């Protein structure tokens, strides 16, 4: 069995059949990380010793027949999830020495299910970015072509899975940070309904938008991971108290009769023609599987980027106020007084993009501008939500491109923030509405992966994953691997 790009589902079987041991599998990935990550920079830290110790315990469980669903499965975790006793940086100089005093609920749940954490993956600082060029620990390179960006902000999590450095990974998505890198690295990435997965222990960027989710090779793998990440958590007051379905069951059911909304606002100027071709072909595959395509409009989509770039910075400016150089985090040297300590610690500890967003958020919340910016953005957010509520009266799933272009060269958009922000033009509206959305591989444009975005109604991750799985039964795009045979 070729372990490099095996699915989580295949690895579960191989471990149960004792075709491979958890220790062998973990060592296999650690060897690949050693060999390939100097090129990719997808990990900020690797916990080889702890991972091998956990693998040893997993092998004991297999010997005793006392296994859990993910026993022995090595995964990587975005470095935004606190893991007790381990460095948790959020890609920032501010937290470059921070040792988490507790473990995030979703990471704890994955560990409880048996998953082994190989290490923490690189990311845009505090999850602010669409290219993974904003990390204090350096840019991540796309395994499909190391001259290209992997997408962001969960770029390390995407690159690590795409390069076969782990079986799957965790990511977070505030405006597209799971879906866009999944699209650019040829993966399946899911942002669940807002509140489906606890945010406790996940370093906050924009609290009304942040949501964790799985990044994997297939919809089936994503479904299994979601089952073990989701669930009510009394420690997160926005966590949904809803039952968690067995998402991996029912994936094989036919999607005949599924009504797929094709949103006309997603096919506008700025969409790369080669990406559009792949998306149209993917929609034709759905028709051949018995789904019906329905032309729909989400009329407020054009306002989503502008509303998002008020709401997210406003929340970030409040959330990042906690970094004061006193209780934890970076402190400047030789502060002259308390004010100097605050300002220089934050000025030296945060990167340029983070500081810019804090200033934009401070502006949007300041007296005289609050109504014209923040309150207005929250009203537009309601309009965007209503668009989805209306659409889901007529369709079951909405489909379109995840990103307007395939992966682009490192540095190409770094000096053009607006062009960078428009990378998320198709993903942001689902984030603002809080509905679940995912990206699945749907073709190649100029040899690079294209992501098809599927958006579902509130709490309907099951039908979404079923639609994705059925597509993957009929196509081979999800099984493609980077051409360099990393």
């Amino acid at each position, binding site marked *: 069995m070729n372990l490099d790009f095996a699915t989580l589902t295949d690895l579960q079987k191989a471990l149960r059949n004792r075709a491979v041991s958890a220790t062998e599998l973990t060592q296999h990935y650690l060897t690949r990380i050693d060999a390939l990550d100097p090129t990719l920079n997808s990990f900020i830290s690797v916990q080889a010793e702890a991972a091998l110790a956990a693998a040893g315990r997993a092998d004991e469980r297999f010997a005793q027949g006392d296994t859990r669903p993910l026993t022995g499965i090595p995964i990587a975790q975005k470095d935004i999830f606190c893991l007790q006793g381990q460095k948790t940086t959020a890609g920032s100089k501010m937290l470059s020495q921070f040792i988490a005093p507790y473990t995030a609920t979703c990471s704890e749940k994955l560990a409880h299910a048996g998953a082994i954490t190989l290490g923490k993956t690189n990311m845009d600082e505090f999850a602010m970015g669409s290219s993974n060029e904003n990390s204090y620990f350096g840019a991540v390179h796309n395994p499909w072509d190391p001259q290209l960006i992997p997408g962001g902000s969960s770029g390390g999590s995407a690159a690590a899975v795409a390069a076969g450095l782990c079986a799957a990974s965790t990511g977070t998505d505030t405006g597209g940070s799971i879906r866009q890198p999944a699209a650019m690295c040829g993966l399946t990435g899911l942002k669940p309904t807002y509140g489906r997965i606890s945010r406790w222990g996940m370093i906050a960027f924009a609290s009304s938008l942040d949501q964790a989710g799985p990044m994997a090779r297939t919809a089936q793998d994503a479904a299994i991971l979601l089952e073990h990440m989701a669930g009510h958590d009394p420690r997160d007051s926005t966590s949904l108290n809803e039952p968690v379905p067995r998402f991996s069951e029912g994936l094989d059911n036919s999607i005949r009769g599924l009504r797929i909304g094709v949103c006309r606002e997603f096919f506008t100027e700025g969409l790369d023609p080669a990406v559009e071709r792949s998306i149209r072909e993917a929609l034709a595959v759905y028709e051949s599987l018995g789904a019906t395509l329905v032309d729909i409009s989400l009329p407020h989509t054009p306002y989503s980027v502008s509303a998002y770039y008020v709401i997210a910075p406003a929340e970030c400016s409040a959330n990042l106020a906690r970094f004061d150089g006193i209780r934890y985090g970076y402190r400047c040297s030789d502060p002259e007084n308390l004010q100097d300590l605050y300002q220089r610690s934050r000025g030296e500890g945060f990167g340029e993009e983070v500081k810019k967003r804090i200033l934009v958020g401070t502006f949007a919340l300041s007296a005289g501008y609050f109504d014209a910016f923040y309150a207005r953005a929250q*009203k537009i957010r309601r*309009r965007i939500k209503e668009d989805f509520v209306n659409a889901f009266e007529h369709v079951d799933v909405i489909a379109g491109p995840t990103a307007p272009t395939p992966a682009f060269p490192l540095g190409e958009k770094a000096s053009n923030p607006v062009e960078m922000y428009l990378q998320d033009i198709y993903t942001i509206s689902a984030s603002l509405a809080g509905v679940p959305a995912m990206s699945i591989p749907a073709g190649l444009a100029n040899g690079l992966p294209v992501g098809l975005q599927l958006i579902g109604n509130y709490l309907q991750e099951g039908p979404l994953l079923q639609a994705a799985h059925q597509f993957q039964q009929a196509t081979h795009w999800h099984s493609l691997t980077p051409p360099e045979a990393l």
Partner: protein
Amino acid sequence: MNNLVNEKTLVELSTLAALPFEPEKSKATLDALNEVLALVGQMQSLDVSNVRPLAHPLERHQSLRADAVTETVDPDALSQNAPHYEAGLYFVPKVIE
């Protein structure tokens, strides 16, 4: 839309955000802020009168629980991240002369 942020506003925003005002970077920062604010200015063209703001995407209220201690925190684990911590105290520069 005219530039919303000028150097005076930038100084005020920097103070509010507890960030240093760096005169040598102020032009680049002003350009970047005004570019973002021009982008978000697009939302001014939409009529949102009689629309209520949406704070929670599912319109749920935050859940409340009994006001009882549920977590115990290890002060040693927390304080090891503090830049300057001694004898159970967080140290800062002298505030009162």
